[in-house]
């Protein structure tokens, strides 16, 4: 009897050891294959631009999903971090002549520090105070960017120098595609590792039951703060890359509507799903490009997408499809 039980548990043990980590690795491999194969299907520079925008938005969404989907905290100001990362890097490299790579790192770190300063008092409170605080912060950031025209160029925006990493100038669409694709893969890899670690479990635990997490010794406020700072740094780095790629940056990047758009990408793709964030970013970045005729109604389309998601697949598109696939195979 005992023998049977133990051999059954050995089998179960082997299964669990593989399932979560292996499905993550499979997904990462699939994403890498897709990124390598995609240039075959991209006919011109315009399509590369869209693909690069998808990758950069996906980086923001993977970070944002760690915060929203895994830790259960909502931020309505991530476009602010995105824009600050871009402007910081633009000002340091353009106005002050820093090497662009260093400017990118410095502005991402500075945004992380800002997130820490704002998050520390807010995340000690229970409830949706982070959403309120980040909503306010995002609006303040976009107002400051638009009014400090001597530094930021005001509503007209400012030019951004091209990016060079370790003496290698990133030039042309293919180079940018390779860089942003690699950055996305790296981000996804980091996020997958984080989720399958004590830190990731602590985040999921405080989302599942904060009181139970605390009774296991998890300092919930500290973990919320860490993931908030991490997601802000991801957003800032993606924002800086976006600015250097476009060669120009405007305050629109930091608008409240952009923040909402990012949240919709996460919710549509699937909460607590790393690949969901990537798919959400891909679909909702491409959609406005495909439906250019509906340009004026972009926010309406986004709103409709959010409503349909909430009503028909509240878990998001990727988790819903994954569950459907698992049921079909069972």
């Amino acid at each position, binding site marked *: 009897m005992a023998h049977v039980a*133990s051999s059954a548990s050995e089998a179960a043990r082997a*299964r*669990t050891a593989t399932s979560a980590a292996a499905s993550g690795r499979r997904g990462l491999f699939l994403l890498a294959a897709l990124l390598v194969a995609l240039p075959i299907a991209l006919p011109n520079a315009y399509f590369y631009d869209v693909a690069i925008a998808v990758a950069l938005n996906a980086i923001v969404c993977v970070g944002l999903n760690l915060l929203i989907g895994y830790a259960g905290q909502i931020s309505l100001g991530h476009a602010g971090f995105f824009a600050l990362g871009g402007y910081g890097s633009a000002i340091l490299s353009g106005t002050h002549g820093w090497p662009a790579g260093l400017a990118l790192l410095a502005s991402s770190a500075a945004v992380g520090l800002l997130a820490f300063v704002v998050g520390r008092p807010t995340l000690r409170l229970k409830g949706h105070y982070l959403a309120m605080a980040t909503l306010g912060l995002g609006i303040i950031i976009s107002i400051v960017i638009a009014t400090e025209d001597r530094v930021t160029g005001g509503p007209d925006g400012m030019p951004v120098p091209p990016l060079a990493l370790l003496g290698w100038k990133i030039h042309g669409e293919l180079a940018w595609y390779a860089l942003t694709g690699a950055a996305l893969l790296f981000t996804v890899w980091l996020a997958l590792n984080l989720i399958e*670690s004590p830190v990731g479990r602590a985040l999921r635990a405080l989302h599942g039951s904060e009181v139970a997490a605390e009774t*296991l010794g998890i300092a919930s406020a500290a973990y919320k703060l860490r993931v908030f700072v991490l997601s802000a740094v991801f957003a800032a780095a993606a924002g800086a890359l976006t600015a250097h790629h476009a060669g120009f940056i405007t305050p629109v990047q930091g608008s409240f509507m952009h923040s909402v758009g990012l949240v919709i990408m996460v919710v549509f793709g699937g909460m607590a799903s790393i690949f969901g964030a990537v798919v959400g970013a891909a679909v909702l970045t491409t959609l406005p490009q495909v439906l250019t005729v509906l340009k004026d109604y972009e926010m309406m389309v986004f709103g409709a997408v959010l409503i349909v998601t909430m009503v028909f697949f509240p878990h998001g598109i990727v988790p819903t499809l994954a569950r459907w696939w698992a049921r079909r195979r069972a």
Partner: protein
Amino acid sequence: MSALRQPSPAASASEPGRAAVRDVACAHAPVLGVEGVSKSFGGVHAIEDVSFDVRPGTVHSIIGPNGAGKTTLLNMLAGIYVPDAGRIRLDGRDVAGLPTHRYAAAGIGRTFQNLQVFFNMTALENVMTGRHLHERCSMLSAMLRTPARARAEAACREVATRLLERVGLASHLAARADTMPYGALKRLEIARALAAEPRVLLLDEPAAGLNATEAREIETLIRELTADGTTVVLVEHNMRLVMEASDRIVVLDRGRLLADGTPAEIARDPQVIEAYLGAPQAKEAAHA
């Protein structure tokens, strides 16, 4: 469900060990000291001036009629509520007022009457989360999955697997918590609390909603725990379980300490019988 009914091999072996631990325990200072603790909610005195000591390696039960303040007291012992007055000493150190996670770090673990399982995880992940205090893990090493981190992760998985086997959930390792039956979830919470290796484990109605067989398995588990040196504070309505498993019992009534004694003393105490059955029946019950 079949796993729940498997007899635990250690059940019979635990008895002599437990008696030995109890003898040693009497010589020790209390591991948990409750000194004049009070708590009120908006003028309602949920707990008033309650004091008792819990000796290491024993089972100390808290009983009382509904609304007596048992869960309030347990929430204070777990650091979820801060007492209005009084001290809670763990190994002599006053811990009252510390944040909840510091209570856990000081060695107090608990389960919940209304389940607080992490339903967004598998059974194994729930228990691995319980190892939190024993994991050293920076954000950076977690994200880069350093070789040391990967080894620690495998070791954590191993410990969690053994704990699930110990509570009879070997067949549920990979199951998502939200698909598991109630009795299994009760055990999952115990395994998760044990993963933290608490010196004092607070069990809030571990047998509630379980059938007689499952309740007996909980009793066996409690005996094994104390044999290993863990101290158990038990809040429970199942009187058979309380009387069988406890070394000492405190009785609460309307927030006050009514009695503190061995199961035999409590069973004879006329005040306790009155509190439970009401004054007129007390005499008959004493004879019964």
